[in-house]
């Protein structure tokens, strides 16, 4: 069975996210507006007021309450949706941890923005990186179509009985949030059909009014160890499930994204670039141009950041002569960006190739074609035995 062709519209990323969330029929929506996410909040409220979404909007005074509302509603069995960014994400940090720990399958859009520390109202992935150990599934998408499709896939993943975890769908603030792109919005009946298999699964526990519930009593001694282990093991199961759901989505809607990672011209590549988000789109252009010059370069687009796609990355990158990792955030305390640090933890399985870390695109500075050209040239040099730097701050050097 195939989905029918949806309507083609030109929409900014935030409006796309709201439309995709609407199609998944969340029952409780609680979000607090913040730049560069505000249109998600505005559009969701609009859908409820014009009757196109039958959901309860809980108006809150801040993001901490928004996440508490979503977690509570989720534990009561509701499908929930929220969205945030940057300061909002860190303002809900304690309850992000609780939501993951309680295994509430909340779906949240996080529009990537630089974080507190320096008052940066600009794009960057530091916000999601700062919550990478919260126990959430974290996925990064590249363009507006992928925002729509990934949000639909996110519900199928988060609410899967074998998973039961919250998921953060990340896209670049400013670059995608305010970018108007052509997008095919799936039909309601097709999204319903794609999410229908969830109804055939066993029901997860939920709070039932009038019945006693034990919550918060399980977190001591071996109870804590049990819960942490189950959560950790579920995170490991997420990896294959992401691939399965991506394939099912592709079979039905005709669009798929590679699951945990997208490999672009990797099969015969000598050297590889690892990038994520909208920068991966630019990197594909560079890969094509560099291949025309005779450099056999490929791209791995990291889609799943938590859990980290260890097996797929080893499969894709093993035996390459050198790898360059482009990070849109900073890892304090390591001489590499966060994704480069994580990739390096696979070094014993990847081989002995140089892994070069590049930090670029902080605070709305573009990760543009000349920058990625330079990444490819330096990685290519390292592959040929030239001396190289472990980490390069591209805008500074």
């Amino acid at each position, binding site marked *: 069975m195939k989905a029918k062709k949806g309507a083609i519209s030109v929409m900014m990323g935030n409006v796309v996210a709201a439309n995709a969330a609407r199609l998944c029929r969340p029952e409780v929506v609680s979000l607090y507006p913040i730049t560069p996410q505000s249109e998600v909040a505005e559009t969701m409220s609009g859908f409820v007021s014009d009757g196109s979404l039958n959901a309860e909007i809980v108006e809150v005074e801040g993001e901490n309450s928004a996440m508490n509302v979503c977690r509570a509603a989720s*534990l009561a069995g509701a499908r929930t949706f929220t969205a945030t960014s940057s300061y909002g994400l860190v303002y809900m940090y304690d309850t992000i941890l609780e939501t993951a*720990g*309680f*295994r*509430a399958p909340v779906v949240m859009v996080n529009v990537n923005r630089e974080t507190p520390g320096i008052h940066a109202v600009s794009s960057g992935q530091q916000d999601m990186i700062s919550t990478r150990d919260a126990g959430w599934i974290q996925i990064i998408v590249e363009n507006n179509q992928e925002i729509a499709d990934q949000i639909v896939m996110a519900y199928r993943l988060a609410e899967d*009985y074998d998973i*039961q975890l919250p998921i953060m769908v990340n896209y670049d603030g400013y670059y995608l949030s305010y970018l108007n792109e052509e997008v095919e919005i799936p039909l309601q009946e097709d999204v319903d059909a794609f999410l229908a298999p969830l109804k055939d699964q066993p029901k*997860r*526990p939920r709070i*039932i009014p009038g*019945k*006693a*519930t*034990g*919550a*918060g*009593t*399980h*977190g*001591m*001694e*071996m*109870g804590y160890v*049990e*819960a942490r*282990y*189950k959560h950790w093991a*579920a995170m490991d199961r997420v990896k294959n499930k992401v691939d399965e759901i991506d394939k099912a989505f592709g079979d039905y809607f005709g669009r798929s994204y590679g699951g945990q990672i997208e490999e672009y011209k990797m099969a015969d590549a000598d050297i590889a670039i690892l990038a994520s988000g909208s920068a991966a789109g630019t990197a594909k252009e560079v890969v094509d141009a560099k291949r025309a010059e005779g450099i056999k370069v490929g791209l791995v687009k990291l889609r799943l950041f938590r859990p980290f796609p260890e097996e797929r990355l080893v499969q894709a990158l093993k035996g390459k002569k050198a790898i360059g990792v482009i990070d849109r955030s900073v890892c304090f305390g390591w001489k590499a960006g966060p994704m480069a640090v994580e990739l390096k933890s696979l070094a014993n399985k990847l081989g002995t190739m140089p892994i070069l870390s590049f930090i670029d695109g902080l605070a709305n500075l573009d990760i543009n074609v000349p920058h990625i050209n330079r990444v490819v040239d330096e990685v290519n040099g390292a592959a040929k035995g030239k001396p190289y730097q472990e980490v390069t701050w591209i805008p500074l050097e």
Partner: protein
Amino acid sequence: MVIKYKFQMQTEAPWSDANQKMLALDTGGWRTERPILDKALCNYCGLCSIYCPVQCMKDKGDHYEVDLTWCKGCGICAHECPKKALAMKPEGDFTNEG
């Protein structure tokens, strides 16, 4: 990876309906002292059992015996015993964990 441990919680999430088995903490592990009974002094009044916060004094017919799996070593039983039949002794004096 082989997990030998037998999980106590039946649900995937760390919370459940209260009619399901909840986690029981092995509170005996918290103990630094344990109550030792001098049977000659005990008059089987049962006050130690009534006052015990974790209710771990077992009725043995002519005296009460502490269940060391749960006894936290708080000493309330010894404090309340009108006959001073119970005395708290440091755990270091014993080789068994009870």
